[in-house]
């Protein structure tokens, strides 16, 4: 640095704060803290494996029926048909596509549950407090825009390769929309309705449970839907750190320049995405769209309830 002359017009070239070297310290930190995180990791790993084992244990056709019934209940008959078509296509893609899809579904489910557990409280907090919102917003921006490859290495150093790391990197990428939309939903609740609740003696907790969350539900579910979609879009990157499933197929096909296999894996992800998207969007339908019927009077549950009612 001393031998170079300082160029006032291009000062950045002659200033070296060696941020890159210093930031590499995070890797050392991650390695030295490895042992601390291992018990938690093993616990989560066993959970994910159990979920996956459960999903794999169900015969594909039974699983297909269950998913179609869920779709019917959540979103109506038309969506159930779309879901059925997507699942059949998914199964026909290749003989082992169904099993891979279930592995991916297990990872995505684990990630989404974790996102909901973290994102909902954060979103509610951000919806209630302007200060918290202004603090968390740049954090969310960073999480959403920073390339996954940047945090892939520290996460692997800290946790090791495998499903848990896959879930962690997925959370980093998929969490922000849930927090944002939960906050937006809470903020979007008609203030005069909240005022009325206060005027009739509701406590802050009751206002949250009985007024704000129910009214924010469509927006929150839109956030959940986005989180699921982003989780699915992370499966290929997650497969770089030894997460199995459809993502891994795509990654391997890429390595072998096997376009056909990549298309099979990719289409599998798309089919899974459509299924999950339609089901979660259906959850967000308002009472009015369901014809003001409570949920147990619609869909397959409604049919069964009516049958039971008739035989009695």
């Amino acid at each position: 640095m001393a031998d170079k002359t300082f160029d006032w017009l291009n000062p950045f070239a002659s200033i070296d704060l060696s941020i890159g070297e210093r930031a590499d310290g995070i890797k050392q930190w991650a390695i030295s803290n490895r042992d601390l995180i291992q018990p938690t990791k093993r616990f989560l790993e066993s959970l994910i494996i159990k979920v996956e084992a459960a999903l794999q244990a169900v015969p594909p056709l039974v699983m297909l029926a269950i998913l179609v019934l869920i779709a019917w209940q959540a979103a109506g008959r038309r969506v159930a048909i779309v879901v059925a078509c997507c699942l059949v296509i998914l199964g026909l893609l290749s003989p082992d596509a169904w099993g891979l899809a279930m592995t991916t579904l297990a990872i995505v489910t684990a990630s989404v549950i974790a996102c909901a557990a973290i994102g909902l409280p954060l979103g509610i907090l951000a919806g209630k407090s302007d200060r918290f919102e202004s603090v968390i917003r740049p954090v969310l921006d960073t999480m959403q825009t920073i390339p996954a490859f940047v945090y892939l290495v520290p996460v692997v150093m800290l946790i090791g390769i495998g499903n848990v790391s896959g879930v962690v990197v997925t959370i980093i990428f998929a969490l922000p929309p849930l927090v944002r939309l939960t906050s937006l939903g809470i903020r979007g609740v008609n203030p005069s309705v909240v005022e009325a609740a206060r005027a009739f003696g509701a406590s802050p907790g009751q206002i949250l449970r009985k007024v704000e969350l129910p009214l924010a539900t469509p927006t929150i579910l839109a956030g959940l839907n986005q989180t699921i979609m982003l989780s699915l879009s992370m499966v290929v990157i997650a497969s770089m750190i030894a997460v199995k499933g459809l993502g891994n197929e795509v990654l391997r096909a890429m390595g072998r320049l096997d376009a056909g296999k990549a298309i099979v894996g990719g289409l599998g992800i798309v089919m899974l995405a459509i299924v999950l998207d339609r089901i979660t969007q259906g959850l967000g339908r308002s009472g009015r769209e369901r014809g003001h019927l409570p949920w147990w009077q619609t869909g397959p549950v409604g049919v069964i309830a009516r049958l039971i009612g008739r035989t009695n």
Partner: protein
Amino acid sequence: MAETREDVIRCEGIWKIFGDKSRQAMEAVLSKGLSKTDIRQQFDCVVGVQDASFTVGRGEIFCIMGLSGSGKSTLIRHINRLIEPTSGAVYIEGENVNAMNAQALRRLRAEKIGMVFQSMALMPHRTVRDNVAFSLEVRGKTEAERAKVASRAIDMVDLTGWDAKYPDELSGGMQQRVGLARALAADPTILLMDEPFSALDPLIRRQLQGTFMELSAELHKTTVFITHDLDEAIRIGDRIAIMKDGVLVQIGTPEEIVTNPADDYVAEFVAGISKLDLVTAARIMQPFAAYVQANGPQDTAAWPVGKPGDKLNELVDLAVGTDHPILIVAGGQTVGVVTKRALLRGIQGRVDAEGRAA
């Protein structure tokens, strides 16, 4: 009003200054007597309510009338402490609302005060029944009790059979009936009505005013009723407060307000109001003695006779059949005379100074 009236609501010197530096502004007002403009310029604060004091007796309907932005909605929210005053206090049945802890305040709101909003503010995700029973639900009442109370309140506002519907399935007028039922459900002592009928079209408004007045005649709720419509205030209110720019300009019975406006602002308001069913003979008559003094002894045998409580409308009926003035008799005694001139001036809303010696 009965002589021994019991104040249910008492507001003492309520000030509400909005802004970050409201405390300092309040101190400056108290110590230096700053004006509203000074406060805005020096502290960047807005005065919402300025030194409002009033009492509302048990069973009384107290109307607060003012144009939008006059601070009336802010004022009514002090009564159930939805808004904290910058200075002053509200007492409900002698208890200082501003000294209550959060729990006592919630109890007061749920059990003693019902509120109706201009925007209805019904909860769109709840059925009519669940909206009406909301205040009982937050108090942790049982399902059965809620159902019973809600159906009674729904019957009261003529919405029987609509309890399983959602608010968006109802018309505006019906929605506000739900609002009224919700306010009445817990059988509160006090009703706060924040422009309840302003958002409705005129016909429905009349209809709901009727429903409200029937209910209030039956239930005798102590009511604070906000409106921007003087006709409504006069029709509904036992007493009216006129509010302008955060100040209560005048408080009085409808007759007092109309016949004796405190300032030009109130006078302008009441100018267009028909006095026929409002002003009484007692207000415009001149004492009989003074009349005799001015016009000499009179043969009053042919004169029509009215009572001090007769409204102008009735006096007009008496006056059209004769050229004589009207004799006002109370308890067998002739107390005053209403001349044609006084009557005509009275219809205009003026008390004829010349004709009335008092």
